């Protein structure tokens, strides 16, 4: 709710009198401020639910069976229960990023003071496009970032409240709230990444960041070896500082798993990326690490046990994951090190500098004593361990959520053939459930040590924000459609098939001149494929935000920079005011910026939340098959839907008859289908005929490649004969004639502002 007092408070927080831009209609929006926008989006892109569970087990009225049209004791129906669950999951994601940001910002304020300036270098003027658009504040200091996080926290309590039994009861309102959570998540992402760029001096205003080593085989375990796991690199960076201060940098091996590895290599390019989340358990079971350090998010919960089994030391560094360990933050380092070494004790240490000292000293002491435990299983040893498997009970297969043929692979390994197990390794996300089920207690993940190729790769380290000058260069071709799209591969490594499918998709798009961005575990997986000359896509493609280039923005929190780039296209390039102007900017992106997010290996609530947030900005999301287990998508009725929009030029409603973007969140079954879907999701109503022709050229060429024919829905996307790509002109013309195609209007100022109740005047779209 707004009140005069709150409005005055907001004006003070965002320094409303700063003249950089007039304050738009929605500074620091509340749950209700963008509800009409949400409902408008949801009227075209209806929620699609695939219940994962038919019951509601949340309160003690239940369990309640919600099958078909049944209602729960509280009156909730199946659709609303799914939507509530989605909101809860999105809140988990927002909380993870928000708390991460809060920790990072508090830590840096403690270190440098709240007036510490945010400077992202000479190439970045619009420093925080998301925060500017959502809150209306121009970020100048760490204090402003804290303001952003405090706004997230304030909204958060209302959203969580809505999930209680007897609160929100309509699925569309739950979805609107999930959008709100998604938007808050993006604010948190941006605050967190900007804070760490400024506070730790990560690359910014540089495109050509260093190539770093990647792959589990890259770790030189003859050195003392430290492995950092998680997403919050505060302690990992302190370890690097400690090594540098003690002349040990390069003499001690530091490798990371998951996003901490992105961020530690942004801090020190000599650190290494072991791999994505999916290889966490596999690697930790190899015993190659002398010390395992956990921070937060996507960290396996049995790490203390795995560390014990391999004789490695283990230090937890986050209050979010304390593992029941003693909090030794206040104890002297000497004492802790002694107990680690002599008693094999594991500790929680929340002081990054102290943790760093303990970790390095323990690694130096332990390494010489652990050489026997750092030996990988040989093929003969693995075959012996697998010998008992007859490959027939298939209990391992049945429990495998990646649907992998584990039984056959283990059986073959027992006979000394590791080919199939090698293939399983590349598809495995390392849950270890197969081992639990095995009646012969075969350590299947350890067997993979003998099967997994020890290839090493190069990945470009994360570069942070897209530069304003890059935006200026590509703004026009993106909006005209002549750069066919901006694609972000984000998220986790719960891939449906081979881990290198992300590289395949990225390259198929880059060679068709899309601007390809990657982040998080997807960015790592994309490094795990080499061409005939042994180059990964990061070595092969230019790291700029430009057509046919491939950019690694960084860790999960760096996802904000690609959304930020879409906002900057509207703001810098088209000079649309973004200050507290959420709807205007999102409308611009939805109608004019051909951007698409892809989460090919979705698993986490964070990825769901990021994706949901992207949809509210008008950016469609394509998910891999596991995304169906998120249980909610946003899909249009395609050609059956109502595609009427406003022509900003004439202020008349026009039925465009073209379903673009076609869906806002959709799952695809195979990588081939994903390719053509991603290409299609980059179509925008605003595409000029030459731009649409280029986009259709990509669509047709990819469709022919994977389906063998012209696209079956081509008639939906050809508006006039000028949209027809010349290469395929003759066959397209013949096809259109056959299906009775009729021309559709081409608008130069399409907008959905004016098609629903909003404070934004239609004139605002004409800037």
């Amino acid at each position, binding site marked *: 709710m707004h009140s005069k007092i709150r409005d005055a408070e907001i004006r003070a927080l965002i320094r409303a009198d700063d003249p950089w831009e007039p304050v738009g209609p929605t500074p620091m929006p509340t749950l209700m401020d963008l509800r009409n926008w949400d409902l408008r989006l949801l009227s075209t892109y209806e929620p*699609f*639910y*695939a*219940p*994962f*569970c*038919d*019951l509601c087990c949340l309160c003690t009225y239940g369990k309640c*069976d*919600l*099958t*078909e*049209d049944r209602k729960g004791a509280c009156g909730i129906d*199946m*659709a609303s229960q799914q939507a509530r669950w989605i909101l809860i999951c999105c809140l988990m994601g927002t909380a993870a990023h928000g708390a991460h940001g809060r920790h990072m910002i508090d830590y840096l304020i403690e270190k440098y003071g709240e007036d510490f300036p945010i400077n992202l270098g000479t190439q970045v003027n619009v420093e925080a496009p998301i925060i500017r658009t959502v809150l209306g504040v121009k970020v100048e200091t760490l204090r402003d970032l804290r303001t952003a996080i405090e706004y997230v926290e304030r909204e958060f309590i209302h959203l969580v409240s809505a999930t209680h039994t007897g609160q929100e009861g309509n699925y569309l309102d739950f979805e609107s709230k999930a959008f709100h959570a998604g938007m808050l998540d993006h604010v948190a992402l941006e605050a967190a990444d900007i804070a760490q760029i400024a506070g730790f001096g990560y690359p910014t205003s540089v495109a050509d960041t260093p190539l770093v080593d990647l792959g589990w085989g890259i770790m030189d375990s003859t050195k003392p070896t430290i492995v950092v796991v998680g997403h919050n690199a505060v302690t990992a960076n302190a370890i690097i500082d400690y090594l540098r201060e003690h002349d040990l940098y390069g003499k001690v091996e530091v490798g990371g798993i998951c996003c901490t590895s992105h961020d530690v290599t942004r801090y020190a390019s000599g650190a290494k990326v072991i791999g994505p989340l999916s290889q966490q358990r596999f690697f930790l079971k190899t015993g190659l690490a002398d010390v395992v350090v956990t921070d937060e998010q996507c960290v396996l919960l049995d790490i203390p046990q795995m560390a014990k089994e391999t004789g490695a030391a283990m230090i937890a560094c986050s209050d979010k994951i304390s593992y029941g360990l003693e909090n030794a933050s206040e104890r002297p380092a000497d004492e802790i090190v002694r107990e680690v070494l002599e008693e094999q004790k594991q500790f929680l240490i929340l002081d990054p500098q102290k943790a760093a000292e303990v970790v390095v000293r323990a690694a130096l002491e332990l390494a010489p004593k652990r050489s026997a435990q750092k030996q990988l299983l040989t093929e003969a040893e693995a075959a012996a361990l697998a010998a008992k498997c007859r490959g027939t009970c*298939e209990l391992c*297969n*049945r*429990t*495998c*959520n990646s*649907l992998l043929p584990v039984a056959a692979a283990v059986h073959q390994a027992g006979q000394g053939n590791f080919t199939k197990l090698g293939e399983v390794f590349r598809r495995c996300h390392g849950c270890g459930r197969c081992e639990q089920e095995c009646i012969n207690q075969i350590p299947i993940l350890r067997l993979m040590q003998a099967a997994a190729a020890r290839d090493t790769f190069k990945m470009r380290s994360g570069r942070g924000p897209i530069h304003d000058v890059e935006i200026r260069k590509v703004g026009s071709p993106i909006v005209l459609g002549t750069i066919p799209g901006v694609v972000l591969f984000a998220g986790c490594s719960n891939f*449906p098939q081979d881990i290198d499918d992300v590289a395949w998709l990225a390259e198929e798009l880059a060679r068709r001149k899309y601007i390809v961005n990657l982040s998080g575990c997807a960015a790592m997986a994309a490094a795990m494929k080499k061409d005939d000359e042994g180059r990964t896509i990061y070595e092969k493609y230019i790291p700029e935000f430009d057509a046919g280039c491939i950019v690694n923005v960084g860790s999960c929190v760096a996802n904000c920079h690609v959304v930020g780039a879409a906002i900057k296209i509207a703001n810098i390039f088209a000079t649309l005011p973004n200050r507290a102007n959420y709807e205007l900017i999102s409308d611009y992106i939805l109608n004019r910026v051909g951007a698409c997010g892809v989460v090919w290996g979705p698993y986490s609530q964070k990825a769901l939340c990021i994706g949901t947030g992207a949809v509210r900005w008008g950016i469609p999301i394509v998910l891999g*098959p*596991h995304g*169906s*287990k998120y*249980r909610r*998508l946003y*899909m249009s*009725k*395609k050609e*059956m839907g109502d595609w009427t929009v406003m022509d900003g030029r004439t202020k008349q409603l026009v039925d465009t008859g073209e379903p673009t973007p076609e869906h806002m969140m*959709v*799952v*695809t*079954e*195979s990588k*081939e*289908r994903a390719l053509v*879907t991603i290409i299609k999701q980059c179509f925008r109503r605003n595409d000029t005929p030459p731009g649409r022709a280029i986009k259709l050229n990509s669509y047709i060429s990819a469709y022919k490649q*994977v*389906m*063998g*024919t012209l696209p*079956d829905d081509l008639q939906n996307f050809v508006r006039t004969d000028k949209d027809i790509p010349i290469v395929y002109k003759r066959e397209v013309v013949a096809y259109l004639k056959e299906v009775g195609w009729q021309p559709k209007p081409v608008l130069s100022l399409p907008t959905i502002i004016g098609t629903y109740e909003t404070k934004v005047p239609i004139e605002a779209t004409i800037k």
Partner: protein
Amino acid sequence: MASETMVMPYYKVNVLTGSKAAKVIDVPADGVAIINKAKNPLYVFGEEVIATPVGDRLLIDFALEIAKSRDIAICATAHVKKKMLELGVKPDSVYDIIEIVHFLKMKEWSGVRGKGFHDLVLFTGVRCDLAERGLATLKHFAPHLKTFAICRRSHPNADFAVPVLVKVDKWREYLEDMIRTLGATKPA
């Protein structure tokens, strides 16, 4: 005989948390009877039909025979279309799995041949976890149709499902029996 409720599908990820499970069609002839009753059936082919051998043939060969026997409209999902064309069959429609499920939810949809909604939808070869999610959608939100998962891993969220058939030989026998019975009977 059809079992009243399903006990456990092949994949644990597909274990039902709910009260309404598929009828397991133990006897292929019972499955044929279901198909025979349908007025406007649709057959959805998932990506595994072109990649999964059943003995010395591909799964798609069997699925095509079932479809042809009753002239059932085919929807090719994923990238199945390419292989189908190579086999000389043009699918009636091409959608990805989630899209076709989305359309099937709408009773007012004209169907792939413009004859109105489909009253029975058969599924074969869709990735098991994804198929189960789509079947859940249809179970709750498409009361106007029945689903039959012709998949040896079995699907609790379908209306009708094949039992878990671990051995490929049994699966082949099931399919062949079904095709034979289709040949020997007539639609209602």
